[in-house]
């Protein structure tokens, strides 16, 4: 074989050998273990730390909140959707409590073409008038109590029961003779039925009301609510002066979404406040603030009120006329 051919072949062999060595040297051990890729990269990817920790992680400390949330209609929305991913919490600090709930809630609940009919949707502007959602709704238990239970009682039967059991304190016509007991005449029947049922079941307690409400039957509760709802709310104005009604009006701006501007709300689930007894309003607001009367919504809105605020609020609502019923309010 000619010399130059031998040299050429030698060079090719040398190059091939070098290439083979280089490949052997530079290919990591795990590369062909399972295929044309680096097997070691699989455990690397599998070893990344999860950022979303799931509700079970939150439950360990926030047991009560978790129980309330998991028993209600938002149970499909996990904690970290609203509060952010929990990796590093609590070591690295608190998770945010969303402030702008109107923006947050409307991500899912703003009425929009394309959303399935089964999704609860609202036209945000008309629904809340610019209010934050948590003014009325508890994000962990968003459905409003009582809305779904219309009152179907017999007002005449309710009137007889009233005369026998209630008239001595709440007045013959549902207008209370003193400032500490509430007027019931013209009050929302749905609200009354809910509260009476709460006294009956023990969910709400009162030294006077509990023993009276406990023996009532469910039919009695419905009848009484229907009876009071049918009465006229017209009452002589209270002579009691508890606070400054003008200052109360400013505080009451926070209450209008549910209770209306003058204490006559549009939703029968919530009580009418206009013309109510001022001392009663003061007592109830303080009971909410102290947690003696349990309502997650009222607890959060009364938390920041001072005694003066409460007195002013009571004075404002006591001075309003109960007759301005807004449109759309269903007669009980």
């Amino acid at each position, binding site marked *: 074989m000619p010399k130059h051919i031998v040299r050429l072949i030698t060079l090719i062999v040398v190059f091939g050998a070098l290439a083979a060595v280089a490949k*052997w040297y530079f290919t990591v051990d795990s590369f062909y273990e399972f295929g044309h890729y680096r097997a070691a990269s699989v455990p690397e990817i599998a070893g990344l730390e999860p*950022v979303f920790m799931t509700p079970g992680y939150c439950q360990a400390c926030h047991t009560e909140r978790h129980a309330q949330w998991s028993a209600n209609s938002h149970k499909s929305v996990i904690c970290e959707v609203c509060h*952010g991913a929990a990796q590093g919490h609590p070591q690295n600090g608190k998770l945010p409590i969303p402030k702008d709930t109107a923006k947050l809630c409307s991500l899912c609940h703003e009425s929009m073409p394309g959303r399935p009919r089964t999704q609860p949707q609202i036209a945000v502007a008309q629904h809340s008038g610019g209010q934050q959602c948590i003014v009325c709704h508890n994000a962990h238990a968003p459905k409003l109590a009582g809305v779904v239970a219309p009152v179907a009682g017999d007002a005449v039967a309710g009137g007889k029961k009233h005369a026998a059991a209630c008239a001595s304190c709440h007045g013959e016509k549902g207008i209370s003779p003193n400032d500490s007991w509430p007027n019931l005449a013209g009050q929302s029947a749905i609200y009354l039925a809910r509260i009476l049922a709460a006294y009956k079941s023990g969910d709400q307690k009162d030294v006077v009301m509990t023993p009276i409400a406990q023996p009532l039957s469910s039919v009695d509760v419905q009848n009484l609510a229907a009876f009071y709802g049918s009465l006229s709310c017209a009452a002589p104005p209270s002579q009691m002066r508890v606070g400054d009604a003008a200052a109360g009006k400013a505080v009451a701006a926070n209450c209008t979404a549910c209770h209306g501007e003058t204490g006559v709300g549009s939703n029968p689930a919530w009580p009418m406040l206009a013309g109510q007894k001022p001392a009663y309003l003061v007592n109830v607001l303080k009971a909410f603030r102290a947690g003696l009367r349990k309502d997650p919504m009222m607890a959060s809105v009364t938390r920041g009120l001072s005694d003066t605020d409460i007195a002013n609020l009571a004075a404002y609502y006591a001075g309003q006329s109960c007759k301005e019923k807004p449109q759309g309010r269903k007669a009980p």
Partner: protein
Amino acid sequence: MKETEISPALAARRRFLSKLGRAVTYAGAVVGAGALGTAQKTAAKSESGASGGSFPTKDYDWTKHRWGYGVDATKCIGCLRCVDACKRENDVPGTAHHFRTWVERYVYLEGEDRPRIDSHHDPVNIEASGSQREYRFANRYKDAKVDKAFFVPKLCNHCTHPACVQVCPTGATYRTKDGVVLIDHKYCIGCAYCVQACPYGARFFNYEKQVSDKCTWCYHRITRGLQPACVEVCPVGARIFGDLDDKQSPISQFVRNNRVRVLKPETGNAPNVYYVGLDKDVI
């Protein structure tokens, strides 16, 4: 010819060639040793593969699962919590234009033949959310006459025959034994051939890491027994995930109890994301 008569150039060539000869000898020895080493290494590898030790983690064996994903488009409300969660879970760049999963909105207006399609990165939707780091569908068709509208969540289909894997020049992307297509970010050279090859537009170029990036079905979560982040946060159950080999898993029931279809079956990629509620114009 006497040595003394050799020209300096020829002498240099001879010296080079004699050195080369020695180099060839040594290289041959090295290759021999190398071949021996490779053989030993291969034997060791096949041993480790055959030993049946749990891989890729000590609590998870990838030969015992075959993952699949379902999307019920009739349930999707377009809240985009999945997009948000995916970004946080997987450290995806914080812009509206890089994402591993997304949701498309199809709106058929009265008198129009073709749907109007947008997603969270549409300028109108970015304006509605107020930031590229927050995601929201603007209520832009509120006052329009809408014939039909719906949302379609999308993500990597983790195909059985993935085109993206076929085109990768470095072996940086591959399909695992449990049916997940992954990217080895250490081996990816950022050529973005795979981004071009994917018929679903599921891959993107991660400018922060200078590599291709895409959905992993949250491989770090599913190997721990958790759900992918997008499935975990979906408030309406529009996203379903599970093991296709387990007949009682959510995905097996979803595929069994619904008439499902996949996107672009004609490309031959054999996707593993099963859809319910697609329309003729969704591809």
